[in-house]
């Protein structure tokens, strides 16, 4: 349809030019239905008036955002002071997700490196093995994790039996349990992109560096890691983002004593509060945060690519 302009182009052929719009249609339709529509609905709902016990009244209101940022006391009649409750919940979730991401990176990078350096025929098998636990539902895996970590669970039994501990470690219902749960839930999302990057890495670069007397640590830090950085960044995003919104691990492993972003939002729709606009507002704030984070990553990537 839009002819010309591509005449002097490089390797791109324009065989599909006349039907390009039609070919893109399914992608646009699914993006609209699955992404744009729900997010717009959320945006609209966050500016509506809440209906008692769930639902919305179609009247413009800022009270959801006011509730998020303004502390007006137990009875809601004091002047606005900064509301730390929800900022604290967000901060805690970010911290948890960040810790889980670092843990995944620490275990995931060596794992991916190991797999990528196996002979080609073995690699598929290793990747296959990494994905096996993920054939099982997330809920089941999280509950199993709880059984492993329990005070009378196998982990403590083993440590006590070996004489490493004299008292069982209380891990369940702590932040550590949540981080372990998130780490375990999303580890393959870290391993697979890094594996893909390391597999493409040209190992003769490492050999060349070694020939020039670069110590191993320097080779890893200055040659391997920069080369596979896109994989690392992708892995970190893929672990961090779902960890941020998760509520299974915090509820089951953390004891649900403190709200996380995910459980706070869930409570607004499923719980007693029944405050849909507030749930939508909290989701919008989360979405904005993640978006800003991804933009920063993307810009850094672009800069690194150009430099």
């Amino acid at each position, binding site marked *: 349809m839009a002819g010309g302009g591509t005449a002097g182009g490089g390797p791109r052929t324009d065989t599909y030019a006349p039907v390009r719009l039609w070919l893109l249609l399914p992608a646009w339709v699914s993006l609209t239905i699955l992404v744009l529509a729900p997010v717009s609905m959320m945006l609209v709902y966050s500016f509506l008036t809440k209906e*008692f016990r769930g639902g919305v009244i179609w009247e413009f209101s800022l009270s959801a955002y006011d509730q998020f940022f303004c502390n007006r006391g137990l009875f809601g009649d004091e002047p606005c002071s900064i509301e730390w409750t929800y900022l604290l919940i967000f901060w805690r979730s970010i911290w948890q997700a960040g810790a889980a991401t670092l843990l995944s990176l620490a275990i995931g990078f060596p794992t991916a490196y190991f797999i990528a350096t196996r002979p080609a025929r073995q690699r598929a098998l290793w990747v296959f093995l990494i994905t096996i636990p993920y054939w099982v539902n997330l809920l089941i895996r999280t509950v199993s994790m709880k059984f492993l970590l329990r005070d009378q669970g196998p982990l403590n039994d083993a440590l006590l039996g070996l004489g490493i501990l004299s008292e069982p470690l209380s891990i369940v219902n702590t932040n550590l349990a949540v981080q372990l749960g998130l780490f375990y839930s999303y580890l393959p999302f870290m391993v697979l992109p890094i594996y893909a990057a390391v597999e493409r890495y040209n190992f003769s670069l490492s050999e060349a560096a070694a020939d020039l007397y670069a110590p191993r640590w320097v080779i890893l830090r200055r040659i391997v890691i920069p080369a596979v950085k896109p994989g690392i960044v992708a892995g970190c995003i893929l672990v961090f983002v779902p960890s941020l919104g998760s509520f299974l691990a915090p509820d089951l492993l953390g004891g*649900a004593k403190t709200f996380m972003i995910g459980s706070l939002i869930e409570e607004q729709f*499923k719980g007693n509060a029944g405050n849909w606009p507030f749930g939508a507002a909290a989701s919008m704030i989360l979405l904005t945060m993640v978006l800003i984070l991804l933009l920063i990553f993307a810009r850094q990537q672009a800069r690194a690519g150009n430099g």
Partner: protein
Amino acid sequence: MKKLLHTTALAAALGLTAGAVMAEGKLVIYHWFEYIPQELLDKFAAENDVEIVMDTYDSNEALLAALKAGAIGTYDVAVPGDYMVKIMAGEGLLDTIAEGELANKGNIQPEWADPSFDPGRAHSIPYQWGSTSFAVNRDAYKGDIGTTDILFNPPAELSGKINMLDSQGEVLAMAALHMGIPQCSQDREQLKALNAMLQDAKAHWASFNSDTAKEVLVSGDAAVGQIYDGFAAKARAEGANIEYAFPKQGYIVWMDNVVLLKDAPNRDNAIKFMDFLLEPENIAAVTNYARYNAGVSGVEPYLDPTLATQPESNPPADAGAGVFIEVCDQATQEVYDQIWTNLKK
């Protein structure tokens, strides 16, 4: 009665010969988890030649949220608790059962025939009733457990080993009993004191969980658990050395009810199902399974004999009063929502 039995038997016979491949009708139930024996569903399905579909929820609030979010019109019947029947009726989510539609309505025990949450039983029939209190592991603690101090101001050996239900209504109602204040108090000093008391109590709690309220007691992960009486009985049957408490400050009484939902796609089958559950033999099967109490006359011959003497169903003489959870107005409820958020922040 005889005629009804005859027709159901006939229907069952027809169902067996003609059906089996494809059921004639359908019944879509929205129910609590782990609350009805599969054999009973199979029996109804066979007798009436219907295919039964059941989804489950884990709190009254989750049920309300799902229905308000658009699930109304999908389900025929649901099983809300007492206060939720009142809320759902107020929200216009329930259909009215016309006089004479339920053949077995007379089977409802007189004390449950005209409850405050559904006058005249216009929308509901009794399902099960029981209490919510807490159970204590007797290996962990040997002292007196007949007080709500066990939950809110526990002795040192129980501190940090308490699981609470992850349910605002049940936690805050129990807290109100503990402090001896009304459930929907509007007195600012009382509300502030309630807020402060819960903040202190939280330091003693290990977790909030409703779904695993029974499992944590059986596994020993928790030494004290806020729990429903039937769940406590099941936990005991599964080997936990626990005792269900009836505190002197009082405890929560509840009744779950089968309601006819508005716009039920299979209204006729829903009515049949309600009649089915008003038959003493059938509702007794639920009681034997769930270990609560039926609200239907004539169930006694069908009940498991151990139920009559199980400690979870028999409050001691010095127990406090059992109270229903109350429905607060919007302004009051918002303060309670704030207290709950403060508790979990």
